[in-house]
């Protein structure tokens, strides 16, 4: 904890689900009904244009993990209206997700298309595969994926755009925020206790970032 963090006398108070409902009400039917159990043509088109997704898994105890995956738009493949496949490339550090899936096959995905305020949410069950016909579809830059995650879809829905509107995520002016953060080299050097020039660490990372496949 930082010395100037607001000191709480105790943890923030916990309220019951009844109290939550009393404040925000039941979800409206309109919102509920937009949850589908399969990938319709609009969701399919969205996935085909998404270069980025966030993938949430959790371990046997329920401890969750959320990791980013990204590639060319459509890198996550729609195999049929109930099945998706997500490639694993070298250096993805997907190991955590695979370990979680071995203990708990639940998965939550959030697909993002740059410039679009709504996001697509997909929840389901997942398992790893090395099926050659699936990996063949994931070849990029002449290199194959090593493994893929197959997602059996249970829920698919578009999530409204308020969060992305409020966060001004697609406003180019928002990129000025990056200048307020330390460089990745400074963070890494300090967090790992490295006694090297942060600029060198940044350059090393930049060089690594160029080997993407």
């Amino acid at each position, binding site marked *: 904890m930082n010395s100037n963090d607001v000191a709480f006398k105790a943890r923030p108070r916990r309220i019951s689900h009844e109290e939550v409902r009393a404040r925000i009400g039941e979800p409206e039917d309109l919102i509920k009904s937009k949850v589908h159990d399969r990938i319709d043509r609009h969701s*399919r*088109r969205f996935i*085909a*244009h998404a*270069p980025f997704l966030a993938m949430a898994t959790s371990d046997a105890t329920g401890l969750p993990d959320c990791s980013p995956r990204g590639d*060319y*738009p*459509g*890198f996550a*493949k729609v195999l049929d209206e109930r099945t998706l496949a997500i490639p694993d490339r070298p250096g993805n550090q997907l190991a955590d997700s695979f370990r979680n899936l071995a203990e708990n096959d639940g998965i939550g995905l959030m697909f993002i298309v740059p410039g679009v305020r709504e996001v697509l949410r997909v929840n389901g069950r997942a398992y790893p595969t090395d099926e050659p*016909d699936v990996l*063949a*579809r*994931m*070849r*990029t*830059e*002449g290199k194959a994926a090593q493994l893929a995650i197959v997602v059996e879809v249970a829920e698919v829905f578009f999530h409204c755009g308020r969060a992305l509107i409020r966060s001004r995520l697609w406003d180019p002016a928002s990129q000025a925020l990056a200048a307020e953060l330390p460089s990745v080299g400074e963070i890494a050097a300090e967090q790992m206790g490295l006694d090297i020039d942060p600029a060198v660490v940044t350059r090393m990372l930049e*060089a690594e970032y*160029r*080997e993407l496949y």
Partner: protein
Amino acid sequence: MQRAVLERVEPVAEGAVSLVLRGDGGPLAAWEPGAHVDLVLPNWLTRQYSLCGDPADRDSYRVTVHHDPLSRGGSEYVHLYLRTGRTLEISLPRNNFPLSPAAEYLFIAGGIGITPIVPMLASAVEAGAVARLVYVGRSTATMPFADELRATYGDRVRIHTTDEHGRPDFAALAATLNPLALVYCCGPASMIDTAEAVFPPSRLRVERFRPAAKQFALNSAFLVDCVRSGRTVEVGAEQSVLDALNHAGFPVPSGCREGVCGSCEIPVVGGEPEHRDDIGAPPGRMYCCVSRALSPRLAVDL
């Protein structure tokens, strides 16, 4: 690069559509039969498609795309998501499969491999050559342009459907071939492999859309001396020459990155390249997306 507007998408067979691309504000670059262009798709993928329209038409290009059931995202995008009216970037035409002058031709096409052959056959017939086409596919419904070709060229075109008649007998074709005829073959790997086994290499020209399965010795690291700039670039064992050069700041272009399109050609002036492409690099050239080195150093004119 050029820009063109996707004017029409026309189904031409089961699993195949033609795209008509109209030059955006001016004529498109000239091309010769056998040429292809790179299409940069809205999902950032670049794919090669043979020009199969009329070379005399400078206002538009026609390409025909087969929906590969194991699509890596290119042909699938064209079939499921590409919309008319969209402006696309396309490369200048490149020709690795040019028609050489001859008095007689045998064209052999398999499935979507018909695309470069269509303008070649037209040009050969127009030049007054003896020209025949053996066009192989599963069934006529899956074969683009089968009816038009029969209607235009009559008996010169033989449609061979494998669902009904099994594989065609290339050995018989080779046995009766005029020794001066040139054979042009484009189709699936198995067809090209058979053609290479039966026709004399000096008479046969092929184009592969996808790389042939091959085995090479283990990769090792080597150095590339760029003689014009005086710089030396290290190529790691797991790295392509293309990537190493790009990372070092040499803007070598690329398309397929699997040795079939020819866009990454660079001039080699020293050392011994190990050619791994499917095009057949001319002397003093290499396709650096896949080809490597047999010598510890290569010298290139960059």
